[in-house]
């Protein structure tokens, strides 16, 4: 499969978007000096990763993995893979927790030093 093949590019477009988002987020995380901004970056990354996982779980023409209440699994229906969704639910919580922790750090650090600039703060260490 050639890299320039439009089918190849289109067939993966969700992945490309999530990669771009991950890169933007990572740049925010590394390059931005503001302690809160860094974690806005982390949230961008994590959300993009969720997008990546959810994309890999989806199947063309499928529906969400909620089966009909009655009767056997309908053969005619295609369901999306439930496992990535389940994993991502856990990951969302983890991200929320890490963000909460990081913001607490930021609030407390601001209270101590009156700045959120990483460049200045790391000199204090």
């Amino acid at each position, binding site marked *: 499969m050639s890299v320039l093949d439009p089918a190849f590019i289109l067939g993966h477009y969700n992945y490309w978007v999530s990669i771009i988002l991950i890169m933007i987020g990572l740049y925010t995380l590394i390059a931005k000096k503001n302690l809160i901004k860094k974690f806005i970056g982390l949230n961008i990354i994590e959300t993009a990763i969720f997008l990546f996982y959810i994309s890999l779980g989806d199947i063309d023409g499928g529906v*969400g993995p*909620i089966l009909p*209440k009655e009767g056997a699994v309908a053969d005619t229906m295609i369901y999306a893979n439930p496992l990535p969704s389940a994993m991502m*639910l856990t990951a969302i*919580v983890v991200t*929320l927790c890490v963000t*909460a922790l990081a*913001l*607490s750090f930021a*609030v407390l650090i601001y*209270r101590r030093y009156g700045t959120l600039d990483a460049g200045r703060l790391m000199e204090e260490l």
Partner: protein
Amino acid sequence: MTRSDIIVRTIARLMVPFLLLFGAYILLHGHLGAGGGFQAGIIFTSALILAAIGRSRIEFRSQPAGSKLWILGVSGAVLFGVTGFLGIVSGGFYLQYSLLPLPFPVETIHAIMITIVEIGIGIAVSGMICLVFLTITGRGE
């Protein structure tokens, strides 16, 4: 206290019961549709935060409120963690419920236990996240 404050607070107070109801719905019907313990926990948290906004005078950082939430968070986690040991006691693996000596078909036992687990998650998450919120906000203004 401005007029808009009163409006916001009244709306917030009015929304609390609906949010709680919605949370309960999400929690108990998680096995039927989208949603589950965690989402319910988040909605409960929102309700509690709104309640906090609605009654600005409340001293959430005071010891009683804090420790109650703490008990909530802990009991949810313990409920989940200890329920898992039922699996071992009933002769299976940790978190395995199929061997529980209940007079239902396996399917029903699972459904019951899944609900219990979801409740545990919901309680733990709402308790702890609320606590986090109140800890961050509960001071400094």
